[in-house]
């Protein structure tokens, strides 16, 4: 069975490369009557880790089931509701509000669309927060 794992991985991993997930979408009020609208986009990201997938890859590489078993135990500590994979720090999205003000110094923003999305690359993933909106300029 174990010798078929690399073959299984080769068959199923390519379609999963770059698999995009949209977790949450939120759209705010759009004000198109108080000036000219200039679009902006803010994108912050962090690397996510799929512990089980890391264990599986390590098991294939080491030809041992031990890494996979360890990964399963580690995964027990990550149990619970979450969007996307676990990351090392959840502070990556904290700067979004200040970045909006940098992009729109007048602070007159409208049409904010907030997205929580991720792109999976089997064992690792990109965990993103994207904010698109418009800056109102006179």
């Amino acid at each position: 069975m174990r010798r078929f794992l690399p073959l299984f991985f080769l068959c199923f991993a390519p379609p999963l490369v770059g698999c995009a997930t949209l977790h949450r979408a939120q759209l705010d009020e759009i004000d198109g009557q108080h000036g000219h609208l200039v679009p902006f986009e803010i994108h912050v990201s962090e690397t996510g880790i799929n512990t089980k997938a890391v264990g599986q890859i390590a098991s294939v590489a080491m030809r041992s089931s031990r890494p996979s078993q360890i990964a399963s135990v580690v995964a027990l500590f990550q149990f619970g509701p979450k969007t996307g994979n676990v990351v090392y720090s959840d502070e990556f999205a904290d700067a979004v509000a200040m970045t909006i003000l940098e992009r729109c110094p007048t602070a007159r923003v409208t049409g904010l669309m907030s997205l929580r999305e991720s792109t999976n690359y089997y064992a690792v993933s990109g965990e993103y927060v994207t904010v698109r909106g418009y800056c109102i300029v006179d």
Partner: protein
Amino acid sequence: MTKPTLSFVLLGSLAALATLTGCTALQSVSVTQIPADRSRPLHAEVSNTAFLGIHFTNDFIEPLTAKLMAECPRGRVTGILTKQESSLYVIVQTRRVVATGYCVYDPTPAQPAEATAMQETH
């Protein structure tokens, strides 16, 4: 009573499977302030279908704001209910983001009376 053929059983099973697995999941909902004037309701939606639910990008959501703005030119879109859902049809998954709201045209604010009074004194 005749014995059902294999193809008949297969077709029946597929139909039953398709009926039972047409599952829809609601992933997120958000709502903004609802206006008093709700005479111009708006509706916009974007969707994205992929085989086995393997999507390579989330760009399908980008035109949503533009669609709402096109329905309310030079107005204010408010009371927006954004609903994100996904439906699985056996081997095909469709993601859908639906936004409903209201188009409001605020009355032009009147000039402050003090400004007129100040001009009169000069």
